[in-house]
């Protein structure tokens, strides 16, 4: 293979990683917001799925991409709202409720999406980019949004008053309560936002990165997001890097199918292909192992009130 061809391949892979990682980015940052407020939502997979399905359905009915994305966000947010009600108002166990979200989301998206499986999608608008050739315009826009999203959320978290409020609620809700912040309202807001962004992530998948709907479209990406949040130490910028890394891992098996790469082409070597499929999941575990030692060293940890339902003390009427 010539150098320029290798370069082209490298850039294609890089761009592919960015594209592939962006849905994960949205979901991860959404969950970071939720967990920073103190509520764990394991149902990311379910919320992404309803977002993907809902977005696709609306898109195919209205031909409007933006509307589709908005619909995906709405669906994700609604599912998160159920979780919020169960865990915040009813103060039930967050782990189990999150699992229920996953079941529900998986089931609903399967049921309501069934008529749309395999439906043809319109050809995307393309741009011509040097070296990369023709790329889908929507993908470029999506990646750009993602690249802006993470630093914006970082800034929000660390340099604004709402961000300070959010962080305080997740660390020490009684202190926040005693100073006039509404713990319940804050948590409801960010859990729902988490769902909205997860839904956005799902819709990105069915509308932009890999347009189309099949049952179980997200194939476990939501679960990777759960692990990624911990690896990112609840920081959006690290979440950004992690998401792209995983985007890369997911793309590699596809990109390496090129038969022109005799040694490592997965077309010739299905074993390798399967092994590479395992990579993202194994990588998450590896990252957790690495992350756990780092946490011990740097004494960074989860928001102190994560997972603990907030019970306000007696207030009278």
């Amino acid at each position, binding site marked *: 293979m010539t150098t320029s061809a290798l370069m082209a391949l490298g850039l294609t892979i890089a761009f592919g990683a960015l594209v592939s990682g962006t849905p994960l980015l949205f979901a991860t940052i959404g969950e970071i917001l939720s967990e920073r407020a103190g509520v764990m939502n394991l149902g990311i997979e379910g919320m992404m799925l309803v977002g993907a399905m809902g977005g696709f359905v609306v898109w195919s009915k209205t031909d409007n991409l933006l509307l589709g994305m908005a619909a995906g966000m709405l669906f994700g947010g609604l599912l998160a709202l159920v979780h919020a009600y169960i865990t915040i108002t009813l103060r039930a166990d967050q782990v189990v409720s999150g699992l229920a979200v996953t079941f529900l989301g998986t089931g609903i998206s399967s049921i309501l999406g069934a008529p749309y499986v395999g439906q043809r999608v319109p050809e995307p608008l393309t741009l011509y980019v040097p070296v990369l050739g023709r790329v889908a315009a929507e993908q470029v826009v999506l990646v750009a949004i993602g690249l802006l999203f993470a630093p914006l959320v970082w800034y929000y978290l660390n340099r604004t008053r709402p961000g300070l409020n959010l962080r305080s609620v997740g660390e020490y809700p009684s202190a*926040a309560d005693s100073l*006039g912040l509404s713990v319940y309202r804050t948590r409801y807001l960010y859990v729902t936002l988490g769902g909205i962004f997860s839904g956005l992530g799902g819709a990105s998948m069915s509308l932009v990165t890999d347009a189309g709907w099949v049952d179980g479209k997200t194939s476990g990406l939501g679960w990777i997001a759960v692990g990624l949040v911990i690896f990112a130490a609840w920081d959006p910028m690290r979440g950004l890097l992690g998401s792209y890394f995983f985007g890369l891992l997911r793309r590699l098996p596809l990109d390496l199918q090129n038969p022109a790469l005799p040694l490592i082409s997965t077309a010739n070597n299905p074993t390798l292909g399967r092994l590479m499929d395992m990579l993202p999941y194994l990588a998450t575990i590896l990252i957790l192992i690495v992350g756990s030692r780092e946490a011990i060293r740097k004494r960074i940890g989860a928001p102190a009130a994560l997972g603990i339902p907030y019970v306000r003390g007696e207030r*009278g009427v």
Partner: protein
Amino acid sequence: MPEALNAIEMRGIVKRFPGVLANDRVDFVCRPGEVHALLGENGAGKSTLMNVLAGLYRPEAGDILVGGQRVSFRSPQDAIAQGIGMVHQHFMLVPPHSVAENVVLGLHRPRFLLNLTQVEEQVAALGEQYGMKVNPRAKIWQLSVGEQQRVEVLKMLFRKAKVLIMDEPTSVLTPQEVDTLFSTLREMTGRGHTIVFISHKLDEVVSIADRVTVLRRGRVTAAALAAREVTKAGLAKLMVGREVLFQVDKKPSRPGEVVLETDRLCATNDRGLPALREVCVTVRAGEILGVAGVAGNGQRELAEVLTGLHPATSGSARLGTTRLGKRTRWQDLGQHLAHIPEDRAAVGSMPGLSVAENLILRTFREPPIGVGWGIDRAAVRKNAERLVAEYQISTPTVDLPVRMLSGGNLQKVILARETSGHPQLIIAVHPSRGLDVGATEAVHKLLIAQREAGVAILLISEDLDELLSLSDRLAVMYEGRIVGEMPAEGANIQTIGMMMAGTKVDG
């Protein structure tokens, strides 16, 4: 001619909780610029009353007047708007955030973008003004308890509070820090602030207050007494309604053999910093060694090292003839070592399991409870019924989940569990914390009974009264070292206080 307006007036306040009348038509009046102490024991209703004033609780009946105007608070924010702020016993500070971030939390300006530098400057200036130096960029977890308290005060001052309520502020301070606090309070009253000082410590009340109001069981027993005109004994009687025996009835000690001996025990705490520095203690059979010291000077680590929850980095300890080393399996010590931990609910018991199942925590491995691989349920039940009767634990059945017991009964369960195995050594950490007078008395009696039976007791407590009344000998810990040891009888509180603060004492 109208009286000078009172800063605060509370009239006929009634506050009820399920099953409890916390404030029974309480009147409370406070003049501007004074330090007014609110005195009473645990459960008298002082914190409740002040929580009403600070807007945390809404009273069932009664009026509140601030500067002569009737007000009604729906939240602490309303109270702060009227200039009333409260510094609680448990600080409401977010540990990973900075001082400035904590001070500014919950305010309405700035609305969106936070300019922390500006806030930091303001906080520093405020601190200077009142003689409370604190670094506005420091993270809360890096500060000492005294400094954290200052942050809480600054929080209130930043919000322009004129009336400051302090709930048991000295419970976590050394005697020297208490002096600093008192001079700060004087500084504040000099500037026109009014202080309400909730306490159960007579010494402090007499020393800092201008006037004293005493509560007992939800009612006022004495209103706005001038502090100069009262005696401690008189106050104590108003508090408790009976002659207070400051000493527990106990026979003189007849210590036997050395049961516990540590030799230059060293350990680090959770943060990796040294917590125990070459600690040498000795406890004999039939004696109570009280360990005094402000919380955080290594007492917790001492208890945890001795009970095997925390590794020692060097040094040794022995219990009787058994050497306690890093590898000793503490369950092998079985019944010889009993532990009454600091935090009943969080650490000392299993809330979801029944009373009977809690009681077998130490004994489930051996007969008669543990038989082979299994557990003899009938034996468990019999054991539970016996202990419930013996220790007078009030519970409808032995199958009740332990989280439904009251604090006092829970402590009895723990005591029963730990002492029923006839241990050689009991390590008791803050055994009467959070218990009312009756429960505390019961706990103390049980400990004395064990002492009489020849058990060695290591008593760690923040309550100097408890230590002085129960201990035979006292040791004082400061920064991980034993800085003083003496017989409890005739011990000089001043000396102990100075040791607790690290001042060297001759002789």
